[in-house]
């Protein structure tokens, strides 16, 4: 059974984020009222529920906060991607409260470690959507 890997379908709210990735920038929201950085995109700030959110390109470098090497596909869609190098990346200051679900590229499973510095990889899809993956810095 071949199931296609699910792709993101941007929404009116999230479109600026995906437009950012398409031009190889990470553009996320910040709350104008409480200054919280907001990820993923929302209509209201998850710290204070303010609707005053504005978009900013940020430096998208960060560190691996957590990871796992999935030796068994996480769903039938990902059978061909095993071992899956799944990670949570925490962005550098000033957006260090932002954590992003991603996959790692250009790294051997054994070299993955929490705290490892990583930089974004813009993975442009044929459907016009760009995924935000990460690889080791340097």
């Amino acid at each position: 059974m071949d199931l296609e890997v699910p792709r993101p379908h941007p929404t009116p709210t999230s479109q600026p984020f995906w437009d950012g990735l398409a031009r190889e920038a990470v553009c996320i929201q910040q709350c104008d009222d409480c200054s919280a950085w907001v990820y993923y995109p929302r209509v209201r700030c998850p710290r204070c529920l303010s609707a005053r959110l504005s978009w900013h390109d940020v430096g998208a470098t960060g560190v691996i906060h957590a990871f796992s090497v999935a030796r068994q596909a996480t769903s039938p869609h990902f059978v061909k991607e095993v071992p899956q190098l799944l990670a949570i990346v925490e962005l550098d200051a000033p957006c260090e409260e932002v954590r992003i679900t991603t996959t790692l590229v250009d790294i051997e499973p054994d070299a993955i470690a929490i705290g490892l510095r990583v930089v974004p990889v813009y993975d442009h899809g044929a459907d016009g959507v760009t995924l935000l993956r990460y690889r080791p810095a340097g």
Partner: protein
Amino acid sequence: MGLRGDAAIVGIAEYRPERKFSGTPTFSLEQWADLAAQALDDAGLDARDVNGIACAHDVRESGFFVPATVAEYCGFRVNFAERLDLGGASSVGMVWRAAAAIELGVCDVVVGAVVSRPRPLDPTPGPIDPRVYFGSSSNEWGSPQAEFDIPYGNLAQNCGYAMIAQRYGEQFGYDQRAIAKLVVDQRTSACANPDAVFFGHPITIDDVLNSKMVADPIHMLEIVMPVSGGAAIVIASKDKARRSRHRPAFVTGFGEHLTHKTPTYMPNLVETPVGPAARQAFAMSGLTPNDVDCVELYDCYSITALLSIEDSGFCEKGEGMAFVREHDLSYKGDFPCNTHGGQLGFGQAGLAGGMSHVTEAVRQLRGDVGERQIAGCDAVYVSGTGGVMSEQSALVLQGA
């Protein structure tokens, strides 16, 4: 704040978990009615006494209006109707909601059930719903998971628990042999429970560590075995409990806490929501973690049980591995944890896996579990976990 402790679990019923179902398939509603009847019989109560029901999201014949469907099917006339959507925490959630409703005086006999036996094959099957491949992750358009997690392969349960385990190891150290010992101790208890799927199958630490790596650092034997099954409980007022057939298990404390669905967005990956839930449950009951005679901790994965030991207050944060090394967690030990074998040893029958911790606590308080009985068991702590440490609930149950 909280319960007076005037409601009690007075009836239980449970289908024996089976890896390969040996019976005749029945509909969820049929299983619900069957288990409800068995639990009422166990309580010594009549179906006409029922005036409250607590259901979950596992009644397959009815995606919506579940309590109304169940009430109609079973002939119940109820003043309290709940449909829980807390995954593995639904069973614990049912208990405290029922107890609260009883103490408020809106009902005095509540039946709750979770059902997970196979259903008959549909004679007119439609196309396979693509949602089945996403498990409890939502791939609906507009769902945060569909947009920001699933496209990267972060879905279902294994990888989330694995990432939490990795993070835990980074902060506090990861002793593979200790966490494997937790699985082994629970298997020891499963071997004293003829109903457990792994009855008669003891294992060693090396067996756990030699089992297939599923998602680093989690091995196959650290993950529950899906089985068929189901369970029901009857919760009743003190008046009704006084006349019940068995020693009632009074609900003296509860807590519940949730903050996220996907671990990426947890406030802190290694401080799990059961912490605030447990603190509330103990404060309400007037007991401390030292006062309970055994614990029944939700254990979909070894790391879930380990973090629940820590965050429920049975040891300091970060000392769970040492705690497991230093204590015998089997029914024979100095920290009896998951005396029925846990779901790791008993099997996970869908949402009924979470109920198995509740039914075991009730049985321990009744004093009728045979070989695995804890001597003089008067107080039990129970936890429930749904999603990926997403929704967690806690109970303190006490014998009269």
